[in-house]
């Protein structure tokens, strides 16, 4: 009996939700486990880095790596798995786009460290001690990974074959990806494994979207009693659905919350935030600068709103200074 394909899971800068998503496969996970040999899965199984290092290059059929890349350790593991794997699947919004961690790209590394180790309320650090990458203690050397200057998506560090979008990816698209991998029915390299069309396609509220939105204001979800049937944009809420790839079956709109864009853009769009702005703001009501500005004031944090998951993939990549 030939060896079962080897599969690795790894997490970088992530919340763990992607790991949950794998577990959420429920009974299906058993089918997966049956079909493959898992050779790395820090969250669930006891393998060491050295175990992976010991494997021949390219001997792992597929590595599923979630999370953004912030530290040298994450970089190192990503590179190692890349070396050992035939296919790397970038798993989830953080790996694909930088995700929530990438919002930190609005700040300089020094500002972040200063805040976390000095200025943050509740921090007691009169000596202004900072973690060091190398510490000697009682004659022994301890090392910590390097905190990088910015958060990167996985493909900004290593080459990636496929992307599974979502925060986290839904069991359905994970299973579809696994099946495709196992059966070898693989799309071209670089494909995002989810329909290449925007979310409105699958949104149950689609029919209630008026042809002419003509928004005169924007509101945040806590400011409105959200109508559970009606298009969320039509309720003056920023719903990123039109600029976001489908595949989640409109989970958030179904849960009465606007889409925040975790599936990223379609393949035709380079910059999800810019494209959304181009779309929705073209058609707001005012024509004069003061009137336009008043509408824009309804969105106090444009970067955090339009690049909630995608700041690493913004064409500018990060705040410049």
């Amino acid at each position, binding site marked *: 009996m030939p060896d079962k394909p080897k599969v690795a899971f790894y997490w970088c800068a992530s919340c763990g939700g992607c790991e949950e998503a794998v577990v959420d496969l429920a009974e299906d996970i058993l089918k997966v486990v049956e079909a493959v040999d898992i050779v790395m899965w820090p969250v669930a199984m006891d393998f060491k880095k050295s175990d992976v290092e010991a494997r021949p290059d390219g001997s792992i059929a597929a590595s599923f790596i979630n999370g953004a890349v912030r530290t040298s350790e994450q970089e190192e593991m990503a590179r190692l798995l890349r070396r050992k794997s035939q296919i790397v699947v970038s798993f989830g919004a953080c790996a694909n786009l930088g995700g929530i961690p990438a919002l930190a790209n609005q700040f300089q590394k020094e500002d972040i460290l200063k805040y976390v180790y000095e200025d943050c309320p509740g921090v007691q650090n009169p000596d202004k001690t900072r973690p060091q990458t190398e510490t000697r203690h009682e004659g022994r050397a301890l090392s910590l990974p390097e905190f990088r200057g910015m958060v990167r998506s996985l493909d900004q560090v290593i080459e990636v074959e496929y992307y599974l979008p979502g925060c986290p990816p839904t069991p359905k698209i994970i299973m579809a990806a696994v099946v495709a991998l196992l059966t070898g029915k693989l799309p071209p390299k670089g494909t995002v494994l989810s329909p290449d069309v925007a*979310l409105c396609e699958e949104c149950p509220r*689609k029919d209630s979207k008026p042809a*002419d939105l*003509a928004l005169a204001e924007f509101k945040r979800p806590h400011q409105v009693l959200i109508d559970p049937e009606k298009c969320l944009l039509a309720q003056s809420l920023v719903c990123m659905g039109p600029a976001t790839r*489908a595949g989640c079956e409109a989970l958030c709109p179904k849960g009465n919350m606007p889409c925040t864009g975790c599936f990223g853009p*379609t*393949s*035709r769009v380079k910059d999800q935030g810019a*494209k959304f702005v181009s779309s929705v703001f073209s*058609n707001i009501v005012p024509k004069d600068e003061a009137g336009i500005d008043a509408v824009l004031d309804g969105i106090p944090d444009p970067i955090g709103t339009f690049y909630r998951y995608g700041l690493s993939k913004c064409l500018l990549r990060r705040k410049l200074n």
Partner: protein
Amino acid sequence: MTDIKERRNDTDGLPRIGFYICHCGTNIAGMIDVAEVREYVAALPGVAVSRDYKYMCSDPGQELIGADIKEHKLERLVVAACSPNLHEETFRKAAARAGLNPFYFQMVNIREHVSWVHEDKISATEKAKDLARAAVYRVRFHKPLDKQSVPVDPNVLVVGGGIAGIHAALTLANAGKKVTLVEREATIGGHMAMFDKTFPTLDCAACILTPKMSAVKSHPNITLWTYSEVAKVDGYVGNYKVTVKRKPRYVKEDLCVGCMECIEACVFKEPKFADWFNQGLGKRKPVYIDFPQATPKVVLIDPETCIQFKTGKCKKSCAEVCDRKAFDFNQKEEFKDIRVGAIILATGFKVYDAKRDPHYGYGRYPGVYTALEIERLVNASGPTSGEVVLRDGRRPRAVGIIHCVGSRDEKTNKWCSRVCCMYSLKLAHLIKEHSGAEVYNFYIDVRAPGKAYEEFYDKLLSEGVHFIRGRVAEVTDWNMTPEEEGRLVLRVEDTLAGFVRRIPVDMVVLATGLEPRADAQEVRRLFNIGCGNEGFFQERHPKLAPVNTFTDGIFIAGACQAPKDIPDTVAQAGAAAAEALALIDAGHVELEPNTAHVVEEECCGCKSCVPLCPYSAITFDEAKKKAVINEVLCKGCGVCVAACPSGSIRQNLFEDAEIFSEIEGVLAK
């Protein structure tokens, strides 16, 4: 020339590009090192041929391109020369003649945008290289396109029934085209119908105009809709759909024969209401006709003054006396749709409101008149039967004509209205002739640039009309001498004599200028054409396309484009008619292929694009739940393309890939 690459693998599998840089004599070569650009581009990926030539647009230049396309199997063409607005079409055709799709072409503007505007050869050459590189990067992504050919509807709409509209309509109708002439007022004739004589020949305006008016009425090819306005315009060149609103006259146009017995029979025994046509100097009844030669000669009722409309309790003697039973007090406004291939706008001008210059006392002193009022006063069929008398019946001993009221004035209108000098001379002559009064012209300078115009000015000088060069400070009634008592005084600096004068007169005529119509902005939006800063309709090119607009198939004629006199107006109307004929007789138009289209399988049906299209070219297919662009209606602005949040709309010639590669190219170093 350098570096001809013979096979596609010489160009790394990229489409084979031919690059040509034009010297344009020394226009380009004097500021840009064309040889350096040629060498630089030759080394760019994909470039198979790179040449320079003295005049690319010349026949040998075009033949050079054609020969290269065939011989070196070029798949793309880039020409660096002048503005694409000049020669893009030339090179597209050159490509097509050699068998290359004309849209596999990109033009680089290194003359208007580089050599003519820069002074440093090194940086100009660098800029030319950057722009050339951008075109080379871009052209790889070009796709073969076809121009769509659509048939042209042979009918024409003429808007405005003044002399411009009348002349254009007759010209087209005489050429066998069906014309609909829409006029807002109850009669055609426009301002010209109000004039008494025309300068400089002094022939009677009515005598030369009314035959043309009746020709319009009787012409089998002309449908005349007066008391009507265009309400809506859809469509595109060759295929416009126009909705016309026909206002109710309360008299059936096809039944009324214009006997005017109803006017006689009206319960108002005397005319009581200020009439528009006589500038309020005359009176009319609620049932009226603008003037005896009104065309069509059909009466109408003004519901604002008619007792039947105001109280519902009139004995309606007008209707009783009508044996044609033409009266219909329940008439409603009607909307009619017509289809036309071309539209001529001849909507005319508005006379400057003299009240905007309060120091001239119009509206305050009864002795102050506008020029148009005087036209009616000197007219034999006007309110005084041609007598030049003041409102109180007195005959003026002296008359002052103030030029440039609402023209050449920083505070009101900066432009010269072009006709006021000449009509002031004409009115001076007529007033003197009709009343024997002393006539003073107060002018900035007399502008008489037309055939026999200066001679007319000379004639007036010899007739003893006074000319005082100076801008009148005020018209007032405070006086200092017994001679001034009870009269109007014009205070003016006589800039030739060099002192301030007070000239007492009995009548003041304000030579009011010409302005855009009050609704010019709405009208231009209705027809999607432009207005200049002053508000007159914008021609496509001030010299080479004076009756065309930026919207194909819509032409302009007469004073709606700028102030002009009758001869120029008629000439322009003829030109507009000829342009419309050229369009119609071609039978079809080719539409630029830069339209947008929705890729159906990529569209999520979010409708974001639908409201953005000003031409309603985007509709939502409710069955498929997808947006659809009617490429015939699409004018190719690309707003929807930029706005499609999932990138599912493409614009020919301006695809994302093409523009991104141009950005990349212009910045790659």
